[in-house]
């Protein structure tokens, strides 16, 4: 194995936790068949919602554009199978605030007829970088690690900054999740192929594939694919499995030993991070003409009969996927979309699989969550925090709603990884509290901005009134002066003029 090892950067805190990954990585990736209905939300990415371009009753084909990107940061959405659009309506989805979001509902005909594939582009070097970005945008490709930032816009932004490394993130630091692991094992060549395209698009000459050292099969598969590819610009970097080493900024810190500045991006230290799944999706789109209409996702937890990874169409409901893998066990309590540390729980399995869904986790109520007790300031949270915050202080200020202190103690640097929750002996839901405090602060900032705009508008308004008044006074003064200078003739003139004006246009004044 020709994987060079490099010194790792330093990561403060973090947790070694039970991995619980061997539940789901025993079986090969299974393909979920076409469901009866696909529920496709028009917002599956960071940024503006896509704009539907199909009408109700319209027939669509697999791979057909059904919603186009709309806005500076947005991504298009494609139909994942053939069928008829039967509704565009709100549907329960998994997102932070819960509730419903507009979705395009397709009743599948089961034929799974594909639209004529767009020509595979070989070699991709025949395209200029700009056209390649446009092409990636058209594929509806977004970051599949969970953040779902539109890939094209991320690349475009990155390409105008000086770059050293492309970092492919194959670190799944959360327990249970194995979809990237299985993808790397089974499709390492697509991952590396995607890496080559991304390197070309960005104009970088070096790529790290960061993988946790406890994934020997994935590392072997990558190494084999590298031997085949003979591309010496790509190197594997093994990372210890400490949560949250897979968070973007933490990955950069581990791989390059550079800290991403507060409020900045990895590009500030010369890095672009892409998930391995994203790289594979780029490869499939550019070299095979298949847009992002399906993904690998882990279905696991003690509430799932046969945990495994599946390759499913975007829009397949969780219920359909769980059915496919053999249904629930009797110990079903929580349904989590995402991992157990940062995922979101939903109340219904009618929610569809979206581009962000890397894991469907069904948990029993075996985990015992104690009642919240007072903080004893033990500081274990501070030792565990990967950003070296002091959650015990933040908690204090969050309770007091002290915005200034929250800011100066770095609330906005919190990555919401949940490490502090896990070590807290008082069982305080710190992350949830911080999430709420952040939302409140954003709201407050919005309010301040709104108030500022209103103030400016008001000032502008009064200035205009003042100006008009001044102007009128000046005019009056001028008329008065003219009158006194011109004598009685002038007065007559003015009177004549005004009376004429009144006759002509009685509506005025």
């Amino acid at each position: 194995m020709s994987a060079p090892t490099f010194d790792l950067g330093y990561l403060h805190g973090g947790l070694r936790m039970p991995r619980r990954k061997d539940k789901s990585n025993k079986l090969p990736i299974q393909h979920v068949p076409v469901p009866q209905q696909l529920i496709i939300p028009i917002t599956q990415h960071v940024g503006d919602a896509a704009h539907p371009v199909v009408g109700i009753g319209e027939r669509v084909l697999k791979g057909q554009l059904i919603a186009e990107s709309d806005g500076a940061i947005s991504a298009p959405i494609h139909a994942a199978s053939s069928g008829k659009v039967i509704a565009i309506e709100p549907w329960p989805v998994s997102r932070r605030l819960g509730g419903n979001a507009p979705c395009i509902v397709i009743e599948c005909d089961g034929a799974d007829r594909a639209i004529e594939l767009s020509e595979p582009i070989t070699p991709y070097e025949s395209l200029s970088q700009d056209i390649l970005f446009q092409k990636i945008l058209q594929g509806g490709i977004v970051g599949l690690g969970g953040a779902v930032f539109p890939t094209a816009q991320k690349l475009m932004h990155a390409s105008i900054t000086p770059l050293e490394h492309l970092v492919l993130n194959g670190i799944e630091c959360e327990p249970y999740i194995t979809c990237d692991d299985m993808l790397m094992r089974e499709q390492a060549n697509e991952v590396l192929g995607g890496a080559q395209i991304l390197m070309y698009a960005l104009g970088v000459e070096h790529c790290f594939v960061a993988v946790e050292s406890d994934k020997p099969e994935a590392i072997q598969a990558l190494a084999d694919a590298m031997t085949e590819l003979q591309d010496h610009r790509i190197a594997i970097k093994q990372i210890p499995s400490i949560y949250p080493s897979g968070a973007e900024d933490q990955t950069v810190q581990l791989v390059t030993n550079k800290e991403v500045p507060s409020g900045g991006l990895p590009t500030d230290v010369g890095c672009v991070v892409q998930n391995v799944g994203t790289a594979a999706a780029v490869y499939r789109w550019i070299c095979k003409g298949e847009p992002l209409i399906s993904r690998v996702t882990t279905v696991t937890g003690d509430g799932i009969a046969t945990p495994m990874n599946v390759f499913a169409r975007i829009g397949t409901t969780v219920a359909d996927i769980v059915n496919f893998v053999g249904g629930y066990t009797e110990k079903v309590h929580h349904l989590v979309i995402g991992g157990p540390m940062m995922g979101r729980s939903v109340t219904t399995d009618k929610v569809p699989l979206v581009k962000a869904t890397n894991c469907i986790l069904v948990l029993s109520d075996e985990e015992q969550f104690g009642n919240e007790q007072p903080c004893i300031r033990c500081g274990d949270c501070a030792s565990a925090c990967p950003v070296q915050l002091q959650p015990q202080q933040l908690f204090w200020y969050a309770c007091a709603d002290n915005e200034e202190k929250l800011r100066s103690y770095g609330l906005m640097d919190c990555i919401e990884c949940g490490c502090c929750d896990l070590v807290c002996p008082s069982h305080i839901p710190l992350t949830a509290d911080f999430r709420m405090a952040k939302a409140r602060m954003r709201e407050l900032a919005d309010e301040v901005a709104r108030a500022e705009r209103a103030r400016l508008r008001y000032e502008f308004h009064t200035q205009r009134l003042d100006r008009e008044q001044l102007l009128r006074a000046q005019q009056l003064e001028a008329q008065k002066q003219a009158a006194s200078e011109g004598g009685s003739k002038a007065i007559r003139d003015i009177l004549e003029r005004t009376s004429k004006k009144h006759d002509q246009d009685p509506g005025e004044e």
Partner: protein
Amino acid sequence: MEFVRRDAPFIAPRANVASIMRQVLYALIPATLAHVWFFGPGIVLNMLIAGLFCLGGEAAMMRARGKSVAVALGDFSAVVTAIILAFALPPLTPWWVTATAALFGIVVAKHLYGGLGYNIFNPAMAGYVVVLVSFPTHLNFWTVPRIGDLDYHYVNLLETLQYTLTGNLPDYLTIDAVSRASPLDAVKAGLSTMHTFAEVHANPMMGHFGGRGWEWISNFILLGGIWLLMKKIIRWHIPLGVFAGLLVPATFMYVVESGTHASPDFYLFSGGTMLCAFFVATDPVSAATSPRGRFVFGAGIGLLTYAIRLWGSYADGIAFAVILMNMSVPAIDYLTRPRIVGHSKHEKAPDR
């Protein structure tokens, strides 16, 4: 299918306050046994009385504040306060002195400041300081540590009980016969009367390095402390700070003027140094929170302890040092904030 909603993370924390407090208590068992062996059963009585009043005070205050009594008693924090207080008090202490200390610690120092997590001062030390300055004459009676002498009398449970409850020993015993000044008192008195440390230390009561009996109790406390460190219940910053703060000046003075200063190992193993370093100063609620802050906090306690032992009118000074450093915690926390990842070293966020 319907599911229950909750916020991430979905993995439950492993630690809890009660188990932390319980382990602190386990760590003190060897030292308690040594205490009983060397100084008689007084400490057990003190523990019982302090425990009774600490728990009673805690329950009464929780009820008065309209909160769950069961939760507060279940976290064992009041028990830890009682046990540490019992270690600080001499084996022969009238019950009402212990009760006053316990009640002051729990009611005033803990609950009037907002209860667990909000108290500025270490409750045990606050209670101890109050009785130390209020009833100094009742806090002198350290029983003679067990030695091989023929005239040694082990004050048994009944005799201790009688003294504790009534303030009088049985007629056949006098307080002077069964009690001695603590080694720190003896050294302080000896040095101030123009004796050298070597002369004072020649007394067999002074043991090998920290005073007979005392040094053994210190050893067992050290053992318990190391166990807590290994269990990650406490971290090393505070104990090391206490030792550094005490040993650096003590070693310097001992080297410069060895005749008139006690040796650093004596200071380390006598009085409350060990108890303070591992069980008192490490009380998370009233200590600084950042690693650097904790070292500074510990060093401050060590330094003040040394200063009080050398120049103050009290022989030990641990309790005063802890209380004084408790007061400095907000400043220490503010000045030792760790650098947030992604922020530059010199950039301290504006803060008022």
